[in-house]
């Protein structure tokens, strides 16, 4: 095992760990608050996690079995690429629900456009496992100094012709619209949330697009080990770590982050409303909670405020 092999193993282990960390944190949020948006984001995280795990296993198997690729490792790594690609569907669904709000016709175009190219290779994998190595389906990216090689689905070049424009248009539209919304929002927390979401989406997409685009389309990247290492590093840092972190923070907005971003109104929530008695003949009372107005002195809580009642 040489340095390059070890690099790929460690790189994929870190990816797997980061993905597991983010998807389990988001699962905890999902259990607490079962909203559709969180579910969609979690599915995106989860399928990336699976993809990374499969790819990781295939790297490890290959490293253990010295130089030759087995059908198993090919299938594993191929499946993981399909999972990566299918993430575009889930991230679109998330972005659409939150930001784009496309009408159902446009949604249908996107989903059919995404799902059709995905369904095809899934069938091909099984065919290929049965018929053994079919060079039409796989090409090996040989890393000259490494004893690892990466499996790339050749047919996917055609598939990507459909996925590419749709994926990129979805991604650009999400980012542009989110920036516009962020500009137009007054609420400081929401503004910050949007910023994280578009930045996270941007980095996430960029990392993977870079990975696929370079390895599949630009020959020098699939033969030059240094370039491949750089690409994998970029993908690890921008997609798996920073991208996911930003998406998670932007969507979930944990309390500690709100506190850091917000003014003191987020620090201590106490009841500072007033009880008012209705005008004239009415005898009803009401209480309106005013979060913005409280200060340190008002921390006495609401029992003090209730005394205001019969003014």
């Amino acid at each position, binding site marked *: 095992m040489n340095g390059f092999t070890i690099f790929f193993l460690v790189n994929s282990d870190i990816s797997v760990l980061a993905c597991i960390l983010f998807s389990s944190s988001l699962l905890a949020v999902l259990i607490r608050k079962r909203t*559709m948006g969180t579910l969609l984001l979690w599915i995106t995280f989860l399928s990336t996690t699976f993809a990374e795990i499969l790819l990781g296993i295939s790297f490890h198997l290959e490293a253990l079995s010295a130089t030759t690729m087995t059908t198993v490792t090919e299938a594993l790594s191929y499946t993981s690429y399909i999972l990566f690609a299918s993430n575009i569907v889930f991230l679109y669904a998330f972005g659409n*629900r939150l930001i784009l709000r496309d009408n159902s016709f446009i949604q249908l175009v996107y989903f059919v456009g995404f799902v059709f190219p995905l369904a095809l290779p899934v069938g091909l994998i099984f065919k290929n496992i049965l018929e053994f190595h079919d060079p039409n389906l796989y090409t090996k990216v040989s890393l000259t100094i490494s004893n690892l090689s990466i499996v790339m689905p050749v047919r996917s070049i055609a598939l990507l012709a459909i996925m590419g424009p749709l994926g990129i248009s979805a991604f650009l539209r999400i980012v542009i619209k989110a920036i516009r919304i962020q500009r137009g929002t007054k609420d400081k927390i929401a503004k910050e949330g949007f910023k994280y979401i578009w930045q996270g989406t941007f980095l996430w997409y960029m990392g993977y697009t870079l990975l696929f685009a370079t390895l599949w389309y630009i020959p020098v990247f699939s033969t030059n080990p240094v370039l491949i290492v750089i690409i994998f590093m970029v993908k690890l840092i921008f997609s798996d770590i920073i991208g996911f972190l930003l998406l998670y923070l932007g969507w979930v907005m944990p309390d500690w982050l709100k506190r850091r971003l917000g003014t003191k109104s987020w620090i201590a*929530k106490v009841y500072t409303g007033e009880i008012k008695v209705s005008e004239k003949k009415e005898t009803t009372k*009401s209480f309106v909670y005013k979060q913005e107005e409280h200060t340190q002195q008002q921390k006495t809580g609401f029992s003090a405020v*209730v005394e205001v009642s019969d003014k």
Partner: protein
Amino acid sequence: MAFILKLFKKIKQSNVTIAGLDNAGKTAFVNYLIKGTFVPTVPTAGINRETINLPKLQLAVYDLGGQEKFRGLWTQVNEKANGLIYVIDSTDKARFDLTLQILYEILETQVNELIPVLILLHKHDLPERIELEEFLAKTDFTRFNVKWSCFETSAKTGEGIIKAMTWFIKELEAQTQ
């Protein structure tokens, strides 16, 4: 961050859900809003949908059936709500803890953050009711990130309803601008 959903709707329309235990007076409250007077009701089976047109806003009001067998339907409606009205029968002391527990659960797991939540201590016309101060002393909403208020109302006399809705509609409009 789910609350950001609402920021993009160039809302001409707001979804409002009315939840609460059975017999709380939800349907009577909605009827008062629509007809301006008390109308006798029957227990709601499932969900009633009413539309209220305001000058700047159209309210789609979902009046949820409060009986236990219908509570499973609430999640879906609440998830899309731009505002929540929670009706508490102020004379039903026996089920006070239950109704609070259900309200907490809705706030925690069903509705988006930062939406306005209007809590009604309903049936104010009856003498054996619980007072607002007593209600506030028993509750704690500090852990929920919503804009909430509590009004005493009655669908029999109409007291408090206009005041409560004025607050609620103002909050709904503020989030839609």
